[in-house]
């Protein structure tokens, strides 16, 4: 070890300076995320329960499902019947249909007879061939934002009226809460990834600080200051300097020390 702490430095390293910096409080964040990850199955199961409830409490219903619209696009979840999945897929494909309108307008949409309804001609024609004759679709709202729609399909014309609209509104509220929950899960995943990256960078810098302390820097602060100064002089990030320092040490220690 050449060039230890400068002799004119009157204050030798205090034990306090050598103490590890207090850890970042990640435990709470990670525990919270673990809870959310566990609730993923819960969300799916509960969503299926809600669509099953919608299908059974509205008499004459063929099937029910939820349409979710987010940054990944439009898709169906918890469909209780295959025809429902097909009818939904047609909406996304044609980019028209009651659920997309319910989602966009944030209002309940009802079709009493697909063979005569003129609002979504292409979709109506396609689903009437699947046997779907009437539809009720309720928007899903989370904190004022529209996140999708929940719908029931029936093979009978004019199957839905004001009573079914009330039931659907109540169930759509429950589905919205569940979906808002699972969207905060993907937010938590993003945060988890960012934290992991941040910790990797933090490790690299901590290692370089350790190297400089072993080579005579008098404190953590001073070692960080050296790294920051080198970063500024070379127009690099402090992480680049730290990684290069550790790499130079492991690759060519003798060469560096002799030079």
């Amino acid at each position, binding site marked *: 070890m050449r060039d230890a702490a400068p002799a004119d430095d009157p204050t030798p390293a205090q034990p306090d300076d050598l103490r590890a910096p207090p850890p970042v409080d990640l435990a709470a964040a990670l525990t919270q995320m673990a809870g959310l990850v566990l609730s993923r199955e819960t969300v799916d199961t509960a969503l299926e329960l809600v669509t099953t409830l919608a299908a059974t409490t509205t008499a004459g219903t063929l099937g029910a499902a939820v349409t979710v619209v987010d940054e990944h696009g439009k898709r169906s979840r918890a469909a209780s019947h295959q025809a429902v999945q097909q009818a939904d897929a047609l909406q996304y494909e044609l980019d028209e249909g009651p659920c997309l309108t319910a989602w966009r307008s944030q209002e309940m949409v009802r079709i009493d007879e697909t063979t005569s309804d003129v609002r979504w001609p292409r979709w109506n024609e396609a689903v009437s061939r699947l046997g779907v004759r009437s539809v009720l679709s309720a928007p899903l709202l989370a904190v004022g934002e529209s996140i999708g729609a929940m719908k029931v399909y029936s093979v009978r014309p004019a199957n839905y009226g004001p009573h079914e609209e009330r039931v659907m509104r109540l169930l759509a509220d429950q589905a919205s809460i569940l979906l808002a929950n699972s969207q905060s899960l993907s937010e938590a995943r993003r945060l988890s990834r960012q934290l992991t990256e941040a910790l990797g960078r933090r490790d690299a810098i901590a290692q370089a600080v350790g190297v400089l302390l072993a080579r005579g820097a008098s404190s953590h602060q001073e070692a960080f200051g050296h790294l920051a100064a080198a970063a500024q002089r070379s127009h690099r990030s402090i992480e680049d300097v730290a990684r*290069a320092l550790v790499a130079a040490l492991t690759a060519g220690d003798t060469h*560096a020390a002799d030079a």
Partner: protein
Amino acid sequence: MTNHDHRHRHMDAARVRAELTVPDLWLRYVALGGTADAFDLDGYLQGLVSLEIFQQDVLAQALNEALEECYRANRVPLSTRPSDGEDDDRPFGTEDDDRFRSLVEQLLRGRSRAPRRDAEPPGGSCS
């Protein structure tokens, strides 16, 4: 002390200029070894709580790096690329490999230990 009294305002202005949210900035600050939590950081930027000088310096470094990235991302490339080695349009931290290597070796040998300057106040470089 006036300088330090106003430092938090300077830092918050730099944060806005670098288009960082407070949580984004906190992540960058933690990555550099900062130890204050996100609430303290937010409070400091609003002038409500104080932050140790060293923690302020770590924060200043995080801001300066973000400003530098922002500045480089906004540069307008020329129609003809400059000759090799003179290209200033490369992403942050890819130029001058040899100079950088020798700087790192100096750092390892302890020869570049110039007395520490006050961390440069951030801001102004990304306009």
